[in-house]
């Protein structure tokens, strides 16, 4: 394959891989907002916390796969605890109370990781089986980045199945439409929403583990990646999983082809795209006008 052709294809795959990571983070945020109406400012912090859990589980077990299972679960448990004992109590205060609370939770998580793990950069290695390159039509591509794409698709598939093919999914969707009616049918809505919150945090947790081997784990991880999640969610439309998916891929491709063709402008392309979308559709690409 010609060098320039293979480079352009590789840039496309890089864009998709990055987009998938963005989607993993943003979709969790979107699930929580779309179903519970909570704009969780601590979402990036949960993502970071999962990366730290991943580091810790690997330090204990030496096994990335165990970390991939346990770290998002631990993070989700923390999320469930936060929802049960804090967020639920401020919901009567409306969105402002939730925003202030989740911002505070983000700061507590940041302080916590600095206390437990310190401020230095911690390393998570790519598991041996995912190291190296694979040949794709004459072009070498890192196995781990393909794994990230596959992982995001699996999570997307699980979410789709859960929401649209299970009884639990039906209850959740019904609860979103008419909370009181579902409650009257004898379904414990607070528990359902607690599980929804936990699931959203679990998705952030999966993203945290997935990204740990290509970044360093450090207290700035939430700032580094968390903001992207909000840009994706706002641009895709608050509450729209489809919007989050499509915008994540667009952002990923804008990022990689931007670097390729408009290197100096690459960092502002995402923000420029968001501004353009919001100027035309203030509620986002797939958002529903309230």
């Amino acid at each position, binding site marked *: 394959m010609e060098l320039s052709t293979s480079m352009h294809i590789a840039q496309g795959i890089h*864009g998709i891989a990055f987009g998938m990571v963005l989607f993993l983070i943003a979709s969790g945020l979107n699930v929580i907002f779309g179903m519970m109406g909570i704009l969780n400012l601590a979402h990036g912090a949960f993502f970071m916390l999962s990366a730290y859990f991943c580091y810790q589980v690997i330090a204990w077990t030496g096994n990335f796969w165990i970390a991939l299972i346990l770290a998002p679960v631990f993070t989700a448990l923390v999320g469930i605890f936060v929802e049960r004992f804090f967020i639920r109590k401020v919901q009567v205060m409306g969105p402002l109370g939730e925003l202030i609370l989740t911002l505070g939770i983000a700061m507590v998580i940041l302080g916590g990781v600095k206390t437990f793990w310190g401020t230095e*950069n911690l390393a998570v290695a790519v598991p041996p089986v995912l190291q190296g390159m694979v040949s794709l039509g004459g072009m070498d591509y*890192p196995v781990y980045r393909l794994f990230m794409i596959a992982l995001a698709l699996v999570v997307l598939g699980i979410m789709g199945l859960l929401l649209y093919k299970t009884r639990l999914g039906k209850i959740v969707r019904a609860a979103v439409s008419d909370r009181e009616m579902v409650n009257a049918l004898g379904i414990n809505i607070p528990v359902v929403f607690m599980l929804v919150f936990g699931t959203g945090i679990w998705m952030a947790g999966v993203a945290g583990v997935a990204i740990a081997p290509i970044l360093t784990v450090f207290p700035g991880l939430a700032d580094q990646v968390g903001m992207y999640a909000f840009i994706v969610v706002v641009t895709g439309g608050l509450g729209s999983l489809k919007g989050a998916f499509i915008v994540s891929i667009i952002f990923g491709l804008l990022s990689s082809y931007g670097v390729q063709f408009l290197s100096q402008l690459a960092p502002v392309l995402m923000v420029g795209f968001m501004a353009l979308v919001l100027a035309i559709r203030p509620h986002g690409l797939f958002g529903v006008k309230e």
Partner: protein
Amino acid sequence: MKFIGKSVLIVLCVFSFLFLNIYNPSTALAQKSEVHTKLIQANYEFDVDKMGDMSGFDPATVKFPKGDTIRIAVIASFSGPAAIMGDIFWAAVSSAAYDINQRGGIMVDGKKKFVEVLKGDHMSRIDQCKRVAERMVLKEKVHVLVGTDGSHLMKVINQVANQHKVIAQNITSTSDDLMNATNFSRFAFMSCLSSSQVGRGLGYYYGQIRKKERKFYIICQDYAFGRSIADSFKQGLKEYYPKAKIVGEDYHKLFTTDFAPYLEKIRAAKPDVIFTGNWAPDGPNLFKQARQMGLKQPFANLFLDDPNFLHEVGPESASGNIQITQYGVDVPAFKTPEQIKYYKTWHDLWANKWKTEPYNTRLFEHGSGNLGSYRQQVYWLLSVIERAGSTDPEKIIAVWENDTYRLPTGKVLKMRACDHRVIQDLHVVEYAPADKQKVSMNIPPYYWYKDAASTGHTWRIPAEKVLPWMDPKLDRCADRDEWGE
């Protein structure tokens, strides 16, 4: 007989010719070149034997006397993405101050005074930096502001120092602009190396010593420092290696997550060396992702020395990387018992006493590299205050300008009087696996890190080849030579 004599002579000539070709004379000359005469004698020499009892020092728990003290504020990122920089500065400054206090303090203004070190967190933000620097001066009444990670932030600290007439010491920010005609302040001292020196030093190494790689790709952070260090590298190549070719350059935003698109461009450009001025986390992330994507080129760098990440990527991966450093010394690292004692004082504390993160991690193990340099620069500051016999900034300025100071490593620093920039030899370090680190680490266990690449061979870049840039528009430097004389 005559025939035999001629034959021997011819054979000798042939062998001499071959020897000169195999044995690269430029390498030998560079290694054995003499230290410049202006950097042989020093006004003051650090005396390891006069160090105080450091056995109680722990950067995580150290407490400083309060009251009528010599007050120094460390202004750095103690939170946010670059929080580790604050920890590094704190360890460096607090250890030097602790040592001086253990010696009984410093005689200033007719009285022995202890040193008190305060933390000021600028959170990597300009507005916060100004606020905290002003608070340190106006409320805490500090005598010296020491900083900082980020030239844009150091500029703010220098401005505050100038406004309130206190000393500012820059121990790490390398932008040349900090001391140009526009920004120069009599109260600000830049005791660290500068961007122009980094670029010229690496240019000198590749063009005059190494003479091998020709194609370079530049990738730096997109802000004042990243641009400045990239320009200086280009300038250095132009000056010392005209045959070199820049095959590409990119500037990415701070704290970039995904470097893959940049690395794909680098792969296509096929450089021999990748130059980066990136600091953590961008530096390690760039390098790590490059290796994950199969790029095997060595990185010429300034900050890719974090042992945690070097362990993660493994010894083979980072071997061959080239780093320019102000801490470096001619190999081997330890030439005198005093140097070993100085090293062990730190290392033994790390091994036996420090139990709190991050100070118990590998990053703090050796007290060398950038951390070691910061520490030595603060010792210089304290020596200047001691010799000034006062915390009066005018008296400190009078002593520091043109001062020469010998570090524990043997190297001499000279503060150029007209623009307050330091003149010093620099070193280029080649990273090597454990078995090749003994060329540098000449005491047991004969390696710096068993499972990571670290300092192997080093090459001295003579000070006269990398004199700091001097702004011709700065009146104080008019009619001065590059040594400021």
